């Protein structure tokens, strides 16, 4: 989140008191905690991250340990989220599921952003045949409903978390690339870029020093929503059997595990992993909205 603290001057935070250089932390704090919904989202994410990191240390149990004698137990002090049909502790599996989702989601957001930025900036800055070909490729990816293409990629590369992650990244690249391309195009004729060019700055210096800082906010908003999208899609892929394979603890596959027990009274097996997905995705979406609202107070409705 530290990228937020250095917004270019053009994006002055109108709705807030002027941010001095010394107030970077204050700016980040007001961004994350300044509005009730955003504060709640930050806290929820912090709790999930804490569970992912500390959970397995504090509550150290084996997520794959089968204990048939303890199968299908209600939530209790010994098993706060109950146990599944193999007697595995759901809290432990929830924590490991959080580890997986909270590792994959930022990976997708960052790698997708890096690849999308390269494609989008090259297309926007150089234009010509590269622009045509790369944008056609992006259109081909966008021609699929994202989950469906992610399914195809996962089938092609062989089921598992790694293929699923690659599939989700591929579907996310065009979103970044298109944004970055139009940003680059609109920046091209702006006076400060022309000034830099007139001063003799090389193309790569202009991109690094002038274009990239300018598009960071765009990347941040897009990245936060891709974060949520990645968690949701990883769970959906896991649910249909293409993502994490048993006995890996992943939220989507945990829901599959509890599928047949949900309507026979063992509601807890499916409830908790789903709540994990819901809270993580919603928190990311709320923060994406918050960043958008702060950076561009006119768009997206006032908070």
């Amino acid at each position, binding site marked *: 989140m530290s990228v937020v603290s250095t917004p270019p001057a053009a994006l002055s935070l109108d709705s807030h008191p002027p941010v001095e250089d010394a107030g970077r932390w204050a700016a980040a704090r007001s961004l994350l905690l300044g509005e009730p919904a955003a504060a709640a989202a930050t806290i929820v994410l912090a709790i999930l991250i804490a569970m992912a990191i500390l959970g397995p240390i504090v509550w150290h149990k084996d997520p794959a340990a089968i204990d048939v004698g303890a199968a299908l137990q209600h939530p209790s002090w010994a098993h706060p989220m109950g146990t599944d049909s193999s007697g595995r502790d759901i809290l432990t599996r929830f924590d490991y599921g959080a580890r997986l989702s909270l590792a994959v989601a930022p990976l997708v957001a960052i790698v997708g952003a890096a690849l999308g930025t390269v494609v989008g900036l090259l297309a926007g800055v150089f234009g010509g045949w590269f622009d045509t070909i790369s944008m056609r*490729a992006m259109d081909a990816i966008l021609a699929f409903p994202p989950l469906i293409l992610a399914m*195809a990629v996962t089938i092609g590369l062989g089921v598992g978390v790694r293929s699923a992650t690659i599939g989700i990244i591929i579907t996310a690249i065009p979103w970044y690339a298109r944004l970055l391309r139009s940003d680059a195009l609109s920046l091209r004729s702006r006076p400060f870029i022309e000034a830099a060019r007139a001063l003799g700055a090389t193309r790569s210096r202009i991109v690094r020093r002038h274009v990239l800082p300018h598009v960071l906010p765009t990347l941040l908003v897009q990245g936060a929503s891709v974060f949520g999208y990645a968690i949701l899609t990883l769970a959906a892929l896991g649910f249909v059997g293409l993502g994490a394979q048993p006995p890996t603890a992943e939220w989507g596959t945990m829901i599959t595990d509890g599928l047949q027990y949900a309507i026979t009274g063992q509601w807890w097996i499916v409830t908790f992993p789903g709540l994990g997905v819901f809270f993580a995705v919603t928190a990311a979406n709320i923060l994406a909205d918050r960043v958008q609202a702060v950076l561009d107070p006119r768009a997206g409705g006032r908070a």
Partner: protein
Amino acid sequence: MLRFLSGRVLGGIASIFGASILAFVFLRAIPGDPARLVLGPLASPQAISALHKQMGLDDPIYVQYWRYVSDFFSGHWGFSYSAGQSVGQQIGSRLPASLELGLWAFLFAFVFAVLLALLSTYRHRPVIDGITRALAFIGLGTPPFWLGLMLLVVFFSWLGILPGPGSRIGDSVPLPPKITGMLTIDAILAGDPRAFLSAFVHLLLPAFSLGLASFALLVRLLRANLAEVGREPFLVVVRSKGLGRWTAHRRHALPNAFLPTLTASGLILAQLIAGSVVVEEVFNWPGVGKLVVDSILRQDFSVVQAFILLSACAYVAINLVVDLLYGVLDPRVREGAAT
């Protein structure tokens, strides 16, 4: 206008072409050896090379691609060995159930989104607006398959007031005569209220689960567009001519807010297609989505291949229709494209 039209159509065709390459690469070129998949690990090299020849796998890659594409567009989608049926038959027989589910999910999403967007932008009512925003976030963040399960737990398992998974109509209700294959519509056509009601009750939970994400998308867009349109000067003119505030809001602001919302049709269709895959699994709904998941689990990818390219075609087609509609409805777009 003609240039606008042909440009958009060519763009759509180019997208489908690109999509078919992607589908070919991931579903035909990369995954292992299809001949080995059919014959099993113990097959002799002779048998495999014979099947290679038969399946055309020793042809150059562009020949294989061409065969793949021409087979798809001429309706030869292959044969599903596990079901003993051609893929076309399988998808065709299951399509009505999916269409019906998608239709009701969309209706539900549309009606609630319009209502809530109208109410939340009418005058300044922070409570309704807050609830709408919260519902939109809930809709965007809830995995549809999990929502379906939770609804089943509450309304079927605990309260017992709605039917469980696995059926589209009550056991004791005679099926309406088959016309479209969509039970609610067939029941209406046959004038059979009992069948309609039963089919409708069976649709409630799956349609709600499938539609919630689309509702969230729609209500966010509509709300933002309505707020934007509400600041336009023409509304002041309409009001100063003596029109009531609510009438102006509904009759003049809403249609204008719809126009930019139209561009989200493709996104909504994508959500309905992707959502149907997981929701049908939960409700054991005999549609295409369930067929796809079952085929994945049986490692029978012929169905999946056809489905993936089909959904891309549907997605590109609806985007094209929306683009063209947009040109018809909004002269500014048409003019802009012509110059």
